[in-house]
């Protein structure tokens, strides 16, 4: 940082803080004066207007809220086991968490992406990344359940993921931590010598079923790839990835990775990459990974796959360009028209906006290039620049769009959201956030057609906002009404885990499609049964299979005898075909197995090693009927 920039920054901090103090007071009175409570009130029996799907950060889950009421509806377990309903424990779902590292029952989930058709939300699936053990999940929006998890090989820290192309042709996944690829034990100081690399992975989404597969990986320089967004309209063929630590520091990154005045946004032409793949320019590369998925009405299938196709930038010219972007850019967001690529330089004093049209004009002209890294041309900053929002705030991170020509950028350091106008690059409003805001979400705000009524700010810190509950406070989101000329704070609500990113989808797109039951006749579970008549106990040596049915308010068979040491599989089918009648199943003292919630028409398996002789009760845990308390029975274990 040069002397001048330092002065600027200090000045900005002073200005920012003063503005912040001023705004805070203003916002509080504004909220009181207006009738914000009315705008978030959803009367009993009425429904919310919008679904908000919030990732849970370090809890590895996704939560579903109603907006504007901010009521929590559901937690969907994705990468974390969930004893409440047995996700990750039963024979059907435990393989969802299988990886080449073994069973990994947790992850750090950051970015929710909604499936799109022609750049608009289509309400089919949501996708979520696992940052720690690189994975990517597909959540079905009929059942609101995780249906598939794909491991990403040759990646370490799947952060810039899973960002979808305009028709969900592909999901992009770029690595946060560059590592030796393939893995090897090299001195860590070799990071700066080019021994460490990153990858950009193109994950293909099968249009009908949503099934995921790795189509291609592209080897990229060993930087840290942070976030991504794909183009739309004219920029359909392109995805944009931010990178930091282009200094390739490997110690004290806090300082070492903050030296360069500009890092890069990587512009990646995925259509070109696919072309090169089809022309045979990619080569077979090592990399083992698991693909775990739930086919309709069947138990999970877990497959181990070996090898990927790897493409080197040198073998595919025109595929990648670096756009210098100040300074340690975090977010990269494309506006609804597909023209503007907004960088969020977390240490920058401006919000830089690149023009896609300019990028197309200059990308292949040598006079607009300054260097090449691994055969990837570096373009001049000014050559692709559409404009800069000057002194917007401190620590600009992420930008979403309202479809009315305005952009909203979150500012982590000054804890605010700035509203600014595309084209004039003028800031029109500062909205305080409480506190340290990361991502923002506008209904449809990352799509071609924002619905643009609500904005939520996803905050990291909530000091003084709620009753204290020990040293860890709930993380928090804030809801703003952005339909008017001035955005207005409507409410604060605590969240489950860290609300890292979110997709908000209008309720009308999803609510009528939500599944009510699993049709029993379509149940293809090998150990499922269709009626009580088929309920039975089958012994195969030391293995006992109990084909068990559940219906209000009994199990069949209801009393069971097994021998000590038997491995008992309770294959339980819920015979109900009524909305909202799941049944539970729990065995007293069962180690390693929590409760199972079995949906109407579904079969799930509870594995139990018969312990010391005795009588072991089991019962239904999900209150199901007037005789719910009678839905209980015994297993006798004989010597």
């Amino acid at each position, binding site marked *: 940082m040069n002397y001048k920039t330092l002065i600027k920054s200090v000045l900005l901090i002073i200005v920012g803080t003063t503005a912040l103090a001023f705004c805070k007071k203003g916002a509080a009175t504004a909220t009181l004066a207006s009738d914000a409570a009315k705008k978030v009130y959803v009367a009993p029996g009425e429904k919310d207007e919008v679904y908000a799907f919030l990732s849970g950060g370090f809890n590895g889950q996704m939560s579903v809220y109603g907006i504007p009421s901010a009521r929590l509806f559901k937690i969907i377990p994705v990468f974390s086991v969930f004893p409440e309903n047995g996700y990750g424990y039963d024979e059907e779902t435990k393989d969802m968490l299988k990886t080449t590292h073994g069973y990994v029952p947790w992850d750090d989930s950051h970015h929710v992406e909604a499936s799109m058709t022609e750049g608009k939300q289509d309400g089919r699936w949501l996708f979520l990344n696992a940052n720690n053990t690189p994975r990517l999940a597909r959540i079905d929006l009929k059942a609101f359940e995780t249906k598939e998890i794909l491991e990403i090989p040759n990646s370490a820290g799947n952060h810039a993921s899973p960002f979808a192309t305009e028709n969900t042709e592909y999901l992009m996944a770029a690595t946060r931590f560059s590592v030796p690829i393939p893995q090897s034990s090299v001195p860590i100081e070799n990071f700066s010598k080019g021994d460490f690399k990153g990858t950009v992975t193109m994950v293909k989404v099968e249009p009908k079923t949503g099934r995921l597969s790795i189509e291609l990986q592209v080897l990229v320089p060993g930087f840290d790839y942070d976030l991504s967004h794909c183009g739309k309209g004219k920029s359909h063929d392109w995805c944009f990835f931010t990178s930091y630590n282009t200094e390739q520091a490997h110690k004290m990154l806090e300082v070492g990775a903050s030296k360069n005045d500009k890092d890069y946004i990587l512009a990646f032409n995925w259509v070109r990459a696919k072309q090169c793949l089809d022309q045979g320019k990619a080569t077979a590369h090592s990399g083992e990974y698991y693909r775990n998925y739930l086919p309709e009405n069947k138990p999970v299938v877990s497959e181990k796959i070996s090898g990927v196709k790897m493409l080197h930038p040198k073998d595919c010219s025109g595929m990648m360009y670096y756009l210098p972007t100040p300074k340690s850019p975090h977010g990269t967001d494309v506006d609804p028209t597909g023209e503007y690529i907004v960088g969020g330089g977390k240490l920058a004093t401006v919000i830089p906006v690149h023009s896609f049209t300019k990028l197309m004009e200059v990308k292949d002209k040598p006079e607009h290039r300054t260097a090449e890294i691994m055969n990837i041309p570096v373009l001049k900053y000014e050559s692709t620049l559409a404009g800069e929002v000057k002194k917007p705030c401190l620590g600009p991170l992420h930008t979403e769009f309202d479809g009315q020509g305005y952009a909203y950028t979150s500012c982590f350091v000054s804890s605010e959201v700035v509203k600014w106008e595309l084209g004039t690059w003028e800031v029109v409003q500062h909205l305080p956030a409480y506190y340290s805001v990361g991502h923002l979400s506008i209904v449809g705000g990352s799509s071609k057609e924002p619905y643009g009524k609500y904005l939520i700010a996803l905050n990291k810190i909530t000091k003084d906002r709620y009753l204290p509950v020990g040293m860890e406070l709930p993380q928090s989101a804030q809801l703003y009404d952005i339909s008017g000329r001035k955005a207005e704070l409507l409410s604060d609500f605590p969240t489950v885990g860290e609300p890292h990113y979110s997709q908000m989808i209008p309720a009308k797109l999803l609510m009528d499609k939500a599944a009510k039951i699993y049709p029993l006749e379509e149940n293809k579970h090998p150990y499922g049964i269709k009626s009580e008549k088929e309920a039975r106990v089958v012994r195969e040596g030391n293995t006992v299979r109990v084909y068990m049915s559940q219906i209000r308010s009994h199990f069949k068979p209801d009393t069971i005898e097994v021998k000590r040491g038997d491995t008992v599989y309770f294959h339980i089918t819920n015979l109900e075909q*009524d909305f909202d009648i799941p049944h539970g199943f729990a065995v007293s003292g069962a180690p390693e197995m929590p409760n199972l919630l079995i949906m109407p028409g579904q079969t799930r398996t509870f594995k139990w090693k018969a312990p010391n002789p005795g009588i072991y009760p089991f019962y239904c845990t999900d209150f199901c009927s007037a005789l719910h308390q009678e839905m209980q029975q015994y297993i006798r274990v004989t010597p």
Partner: protein
Amino acid sequence: MKSFFLRKLNDKNRLLVIGVGLVLVGVFFTPIWHISLDAPQYPEGLGMQIWVNRVVGSTPYDLKNINLLNHYIGMQEIASESIPELLFMPYVLGYLIFGALVTFFYPRIWMVCLGVFNFAVLGAVGFYDFWRWEYNYGHNLNPEAPIVVPGMVYQPPLLGCKEMLNITACSYPSIGGMILFAAVFTLLFLLWTERRRFLDGI
């Protein structure tokens, strides 16, 4: 008067008779009666439809869920297979349609009267049978049922609504039933016009 019954129908009424016959074919393809159940825990309602040859739920799973509710009070399972009337009801309907066809080719007023008589007798028997059917389901309860409310019977109404415990049961004709009623009224209307023609000496 005898000459009135032996009179030929005029062409318009002859067409009306065959029209009634054709419309009656529609009863094969629509439910005759509809019984709905409303309870607080079923805000979307539960319903069953009685067709000429089967009993089904209003949605694919309603009948199953009605039976599930009924099992608490020990009511027999409602299933098409256990209702023998459903086996011959299509023939009865066929007989009525056949009657319309015969009347078309042999268009006499007494034939229409016979049709009305048939409707009246079959209707009365039908309603009695339906009532008996409801009576049996409502009264013959399993004494071992989990819920026994002394003195409580669960007979749904023949027509109209009735509260039973926390459930409101309503019973009304459906499209097929309305067709049947309309058919009778059409025949009566036909006879009335023929009578007026007769009295006017046309």
